[in-house]
């Protein structure tokens, strides 16, 4: 724009980027308070590692024909752990589908995730008594759950509850109108709502820069007048800090905001995908250098908060938990066939009874 005397600047917007640890795990400056708590930091590391162990197991189950299509979270574990740590039990989490770590922290048993990708709806019946029990299930239709978060947060505000709603979605999801309608409206009611964009650089085969003309995804916040910021999503400390700040601002009445967490999808899109078709091995290799687990481990070790023995114990725990989950999943008997009618309505209208009866008398047909 050529400014003329008749042109005045009326608004200005910034996008900031936060990173505490460099890829080698060296602190770039002063760290947030929680980083002084060795137990807490070790716990975060533990969840990263457990999630990776789970992920590995799930892929292995799929590769051996014992699980359906699975969407791995390899390399993106820190975002999930950050969500799990930033939210309080009473908060409401509305995931896309790669934030397993957050779900684990909120009480979703690992076998539930396996059941889900194994084709069993009971995978999304998260147990009573856990925070996850009031969380949303995974959402496959991309971005569609995001505007629902506006309604959930509205309900929270209506009831004057001190709860925060966090909806996460991928970089691809930010192209959907659903996402934009949510962002555009959230500030109207000053909702206690955080939008988290899990920018893993790819939406199946479409790279981030072919997804939108926007230079950052954080700036999509401005379309709704929200603050939007970027954070290194592979820096466990940074992503937790930034998310926690956004969540607590929302809780304190400071309104909605958007966080874009930069990460990288180290795995194929799902087990049904072959990413070598569309991206270079070099790119993936370079991304491994920014792995969140390696980075936090280096930092912990630098502080002498982590030993080889700790690591060995943790690896064993991860393998054992993943194996236990796999066993629980594999030994879960299928539902009776007529279960496909049992949660259609609160009470099945009599008009559909004969269909349920037909299915019941035809007997089991399931497989998988």
């Amino acid at each position, binding site marked *: 724009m050529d400014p003329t005397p008749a042109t005045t600047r009326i608004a200005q917007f910034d996008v900031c980027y936060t990173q505490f640890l460099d890829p080698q795990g060296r602190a770039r400056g002063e760290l947030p308070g929680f980083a002084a708590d060795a137990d807490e930091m070790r716990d975060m590391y533990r969840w990263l590692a457990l999630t990776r162990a789970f992920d590995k197991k799930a892929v292995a189950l799929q590769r051996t024909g014992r699980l359906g299509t699975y969407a791995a979270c390899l390399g993106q574990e820190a975002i999930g752990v950050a969500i799990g740590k930033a939210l309080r039990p009473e908060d409401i989490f509305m995931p896309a589908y790669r934030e397993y770590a957050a779900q684990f922290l909120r009480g979703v048993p690992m076998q539930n995730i396996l059941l889900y990708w194994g084709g069993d*709806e*009971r995978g*999304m*019946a*998260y147990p009573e008594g856990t925070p996850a*029990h009031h969380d*949303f*299930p995974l959402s496959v*239709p991309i971005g*569609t*759950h*995001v*505007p*629902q*978060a*506006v*309604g*959930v*947060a*509205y*309900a*929270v505000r*209506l*009831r004057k509850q001190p709860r925060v709603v966090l909806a996460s979605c991928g970089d691809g999801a930010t192209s959907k*109108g*659903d996402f934009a*309608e*949510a962002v*555009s*409206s959230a500030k*109207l009611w000053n909702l206690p709502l955080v939008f988290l964009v899990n920018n893993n650089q790819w939406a199946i085969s479409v790279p981030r820069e072919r997804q939108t003309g926007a230079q950052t995804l954080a700036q999509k916040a401005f379309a709704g007048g929200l603050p939007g910021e970027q954070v290194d999503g592979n820096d466990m400390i940074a992503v937790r800090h930034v998310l926690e700040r956004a969540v607590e601002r929302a809780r304190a009445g400071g309104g909605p905001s958007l966080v874009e967490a930069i990460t990288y999808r180290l795995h194929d899109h799902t087990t049904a995908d072959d990413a070598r078709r569309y991206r270079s091995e070099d790119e993936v290799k370079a991304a491994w250098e920014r792995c969140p687990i390696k980075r936090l481990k280096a930092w912990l070790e630098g502080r002498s908060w982590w030993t080889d023995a700790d690591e060995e114990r943790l690896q064993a725990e991860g393998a054992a938990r993943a194996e236990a989950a796999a066993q629980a999943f594999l030994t879960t008997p299928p539902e009776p066939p007529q279960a496909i009618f*049992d*949660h*259609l*309505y*609160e009470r099945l*209208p*009599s*008009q*559909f009874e004969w269909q349920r009866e037909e299915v019941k008398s035809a007997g089991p047909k399931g497989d998988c």
Partner: protein
Amino acid sequence: MANLAIIEAINLALHSEMARDPDVVVLGEDIGRNGGVFRATLGLLDTFGPERVIDTPLAETLVAAMSIGLSTQGIRPVAEVQFSGFLYPCVDQVVNHATRLRNRTRGRMSCPLVIRSPNWGGIHAPEHHSEALETTFAHMPGLRVVCPSNPARAYGLLLAAIRDPDPVIFLEPTRCYRLFKAPVEDNGAALPLDTAFVEREGGDITLVSWGATMHETRLAADALAEQGIAAEVIDVATLKPLDMDTILESVAKTGRCVIVQEAPRAGGWASEIAANIAEHGLLSLFAPVMRASGYDTIMPLARSEKVYIPDVARILREVRKVFEIAPKN
């Protein structure tokens, strides 16, 4: 007991249920200060305040999605979509989420929401304001689709829709909003959401319809009565779940059936009813099941809308075909 028009009965039901149940909220475009473009929500803002009477931005996907979000938290949202032609952006949210959240979480979560919208043509409205959406929704598993055709049913069925634990699409007959008044008792009593209403008994032919075309159907029955033909008139009212028992019972008695719908013929709900009669009532039929229907063309603009909408003449034409094949003896 007041004499009310359909739009007034809807307004009364909303007032009544919002007063009774503090968890009920209404939302939509222009439903607050403006009271809705048809005034269905008149007075709600003043009575219940802006927290429970939510003027939304111009975004129907958001309206549906917010309703889903609210309903998962135990709120009972009643959303208004200004005209049913603008319901299409809600379809994804309704079918991919609202209808299946209960099922996909095995009962952990549910969506007790209502989406209301004026449906069908006949008011000389602008383009896209006269659509017939009932079949699109009624085909979706997990939904209830309700189409009231008189003030008392509008009141009682809307109460039932709001109280129902599952999602309900509530399609109101725009051109009948103020067409006539009838007594409505504000007694807070819901009507059943799975029952067709036999409005008028008759042994010669069964006329089946719902929503706005109930009006033309009633007039057709009047005209037939003058010709000495006793039509049984059934208001389907709830399209899904569909009360075929009532229809089949009637057809068993009359042996003749004409179904009246305004939606495009191909794949309309009249076809569903006819198919069920063909399956379960075939042996009682004296003649083919005829459909007096909207055509398989775009709803025309105002100047030609009467060409499209099935009128009494078109209904009588189908009835005549039936009696030509199976004369009254």
